[in-house]
């Protein structure tokens, strides 16, 4: 197979010879190694090694994007030729030319660890460490997954912008079960092997499972709710999605007409980073060859910007924020600003509340209004008078995003990188204490 730069050159060269106005080639190669386990036993090991070429072409305001995994030089030329031919059948659409700055991107030094390049043989021992740690902490059986990935992306545009960037990441998601329904959850997410802590995640899952024995259903009502970094990241990600100018333009975002307005309490800050120390995602350039950067989305509770690509930015008379997506801008690495409380201080502040450590199945009644509900699972605890009064089960949490983030009272100083089954965008997140959240339970 050609190397990534050669692939891009073949694709963009073919496109230019055909007479396109703009062409972008983004080639990538990745290797993902995974071990999954359940009932303290490995269930499968996976290794997926792939390469892909994505091509964007524009001619006479007609635009198309295509991806292929057939990467021989002749195949790529034919692929570009077919894509070019298809443009004739397309209607004209919103079009903004690519930047002609001819940027040359060098790989970021952040977020790449050579020790993660070939780690698949070490995964069984790591899984065993997590399982054993959970057992020692009180878990009886554990299920989980360790995923180690490395990826390189190279870009070339017809305007002459070029470069490459690489990332590594390793994550563990472990869930432990004790007697009956009692379960606990642990995560460890890192871009570097030295910060990866399977033993710690296993211990948290085991302790959580042990602490959940004898859980009871709460009364329905409004509660102070303390969201763990895991739960908070899941909800924060939906706000960042709502900040995509594509969602705003499509009328599906709860942040429509909110620019410059209060959308959260003054203690809440949300930032997106193209690349950042410790970040598990992102790269130094976006899909249109714009340099990625740090963008403050919510500053002291005020919505300060939407996330843009060239097309959405031009409609609003601003510049791209380096978040393309050819179609829809998206965040790379989210960061929720730290507070000044400890977890223990936050619990002490709660008169009648609920602590949630994990959740799943967040669904929206209406993305425009921001109304949603989510289902807590694993460690969940009733707090009365600043103390843990016992474990909880069988509940659902509902709210709307703007009310929830406007009711943030405290954030912890301690933060954690989160990326797992329920959180796609890596997020550095603290514990977040929110007032007046609705808790319900089902009729049975």
């Amino acid at each position, binding site marked *: 197979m050609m190397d990534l730069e050669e692939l891009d050159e073949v694709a963009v060269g073919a496109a230019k010879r055909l007479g396109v106005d703009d062409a972008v080639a983004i080639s990538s190669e990745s290797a993902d190694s995974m*071990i*999954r386990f*359940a*009932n303290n*036993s*490995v*269930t499968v*090991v*996976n*290794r*997926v*090694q*792939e*390469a892909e070429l994505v091509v*964007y072409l524009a001619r006479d305001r007609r635009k*198309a*994007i*295509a991806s*292929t*995994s*057939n990467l021989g030089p002749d195949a790529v030329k034919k*692929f570009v030729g077919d894509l070019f031919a*298809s443009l004739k*059948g*397309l*209607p004209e*659409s*919103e079009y903004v030319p690519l930047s002609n700055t001819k940027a040359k991107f060098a790989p970021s030094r952040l977020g790449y660890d050579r020790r993660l390049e070939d780690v698949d043989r070490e995964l069984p*021992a790591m899984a*065993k460490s997590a*399982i054993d740690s959970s057992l020692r902490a009180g878990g009886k*059986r*554990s*299920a989980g997954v360790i*995923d180690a990935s490395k990826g390189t992306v190279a870009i070339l545009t017809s305007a002459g912008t070029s470069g490459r960037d690489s990332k590594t990441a390793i994550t563990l998601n472990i869930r432990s079960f004790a007697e009956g*329904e009692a379960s606990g959850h642990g995560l460890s997410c890192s871009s570097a092997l030295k910060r990866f802590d399977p033993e710690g995640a296993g211990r948290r899952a085991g302790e959580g499972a042990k602490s959940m024995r004898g859980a009871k259903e709460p009364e*329905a009502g409004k509660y102070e709710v303390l969201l763990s970094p895991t739960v908070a990241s899941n909800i924060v990600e939906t706000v960042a999605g709502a900040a995509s100018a594509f969602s705003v333009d*499509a*009328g*599906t975002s709860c942040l429509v007409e909110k620019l410059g307005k209060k959308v959260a309490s003054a203690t809440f800050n949300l930032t997106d980073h193209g690349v950042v120390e410790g970040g598990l995602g992102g790269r130094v350039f976006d899909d249109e060859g714009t340099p990625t950067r740090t963008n403050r989305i919510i500053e002291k509770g005020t919505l300060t910007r939407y996330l843009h690509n060239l097309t959405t930015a031009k409609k609003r008379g601003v510049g791209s924020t380096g978040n393309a997506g050819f*179609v829809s801008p998206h965040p790379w690495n989210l960061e929720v600003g730290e507070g000044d409380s400890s977890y223990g201080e936050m619990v002490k502040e709660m008169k009648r509340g609920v602590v949630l450590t994990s959740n799943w*199945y967040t*669904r929206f*009644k*209406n*993305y*425009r*209004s921001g*109304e*949603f*509900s989510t*289902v807590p*699972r694993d460690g969940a605890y009733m707090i009365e008078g600043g103390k843990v009064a016992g474990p909880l089960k*069988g509940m*659902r949490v509902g709210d709307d995003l703007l009310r929830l983030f406007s009711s943030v009272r405290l954030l912890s100083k301690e933060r954690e990188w989160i990326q797992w*089954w329920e959180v796609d965008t890596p997020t550095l997140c603290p514990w977040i204490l929110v007032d007046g959240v609705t808790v*319900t*339970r*089902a*009729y049975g």
Partner: protein
Amino acid sequence: MRTQEGKDLAEAAVSVAQKEGASYAEARVQTTWEREFGLKNGEPQPSFFVEGFGIGIRVISRGALGFCATNDMSLRAVKEVASRAVRLARASAQVLREPVLLDSTKGTRRSWAAQETRRVENADPAWLQGVLRDVEGRIAGERAGVKLPGRLLYAAAELQERYYVNSDGARVTGRVPRVGFFGSLTAIDGGSTAQRHIQQAETGGLEVMERLRISDLVEEEARALGKVLRARSGPPTDVVDVVLSPELSGIAAHESVGHPQEADRVLGREGAQAGESYLKADSLGMKIGSPEANVSDDPTLPRSNGYVPVDDEGVPGKKRRLIKDGMINEFLHNRATAKRFGLKSNGAARSVSFDREPIIRMSNTFVEPGDYTTDEIFKDVKHGVYFKSYTEWNIDDKRLNQRYVGLEAYLIERGELKGLVKSPVLEITTPKLWGSVKARSRHMEFEAATCGKGDPQQGAPVWTGGPETLLAGIRLGSR
């Protein structure tokens, strides 16, 4: 599909894996072809094309399962990947306590293709945009009687072809063309908004789009949003009967019957992701509903979105009666879970692409039709609520505690539909829901959906559906 090249590579992969010491090996070569077009508030979005070709190899060595995939389709690379799958499986045996064994299903030799009249490869961008222009023309500019400032419309056509081979003698070639539509409508009236997501898809060629009558459907949904925005009455707070539309019957069947009856969940394999199940291995024969509760999953339905006549372990699919007359009757199995239960697989293993391992999935999950006409179902309701469509929904990971928020919903009084009811909430446990089924109509409808499961995630195309289902003695809202 590059048929012979793919077949040769798959055969070579299985051969190498066996030589390396695998007690079982399989390979699946799969091509993917997709064309998609979108309109955002009438503005054309960039057309999107996908062409993929790769191989997934799964082996058992020393009782451990290994899966490797690549799209480097050189013989050298495929042999290396097959060999690596065996080495990785063997190395993982240090954490193995429950060896993977397969049932005794004999290898199937079969070539199959979903029915197709007009070949899906003819879905060029002009045809796709024509479909959407027609839809847009029906709803833009308040033509459907409601302001729709958010209109996202997508039409897509795809083709998946696969060649599957395993060391137990299976040789299966499959072709799945699929055509579908997705739309998201946001309606506004004064300060109120309402939202509806519409998904329809079938296996087949270009004729699917005509069968689906998308323009009529979307216009109808847009008009319904206008009505929903004008609804003022809250749902009743006393005990009522509830009529679930085919759409609601289908999502309930999928979420609270199909998922908990996936045998891998029952055995704990999805514990860290999609969760486990309220059912245990010995729950077969347990009473979960009234005698009227009957739910099935059938991968053999012609034209269906979840059409899988032979699964991705080479096992012929067949109809599964999940709940029969109120009793837990059958789980969804692959070859490994079937072996654990002392059974043979019922053909529920699916993979969405070459780089994903096959896991247990639903296909088309539905409440079985009953004996009543739709009119008869409503006629018997003295005081109730009809859930015609829903918005928000979710369920806990053991599949016991679910919630469906009605979008278009009506009060029923003495057998007649009265005014719209605003956002009724059915938050109910699984035994209560299926234990309340009093009657089912003969009228069946299906919706397309994308079911999420697995790690890495696999979004599998399915149908959900059923008749009008009458639930007796329900309290709406939550406690």
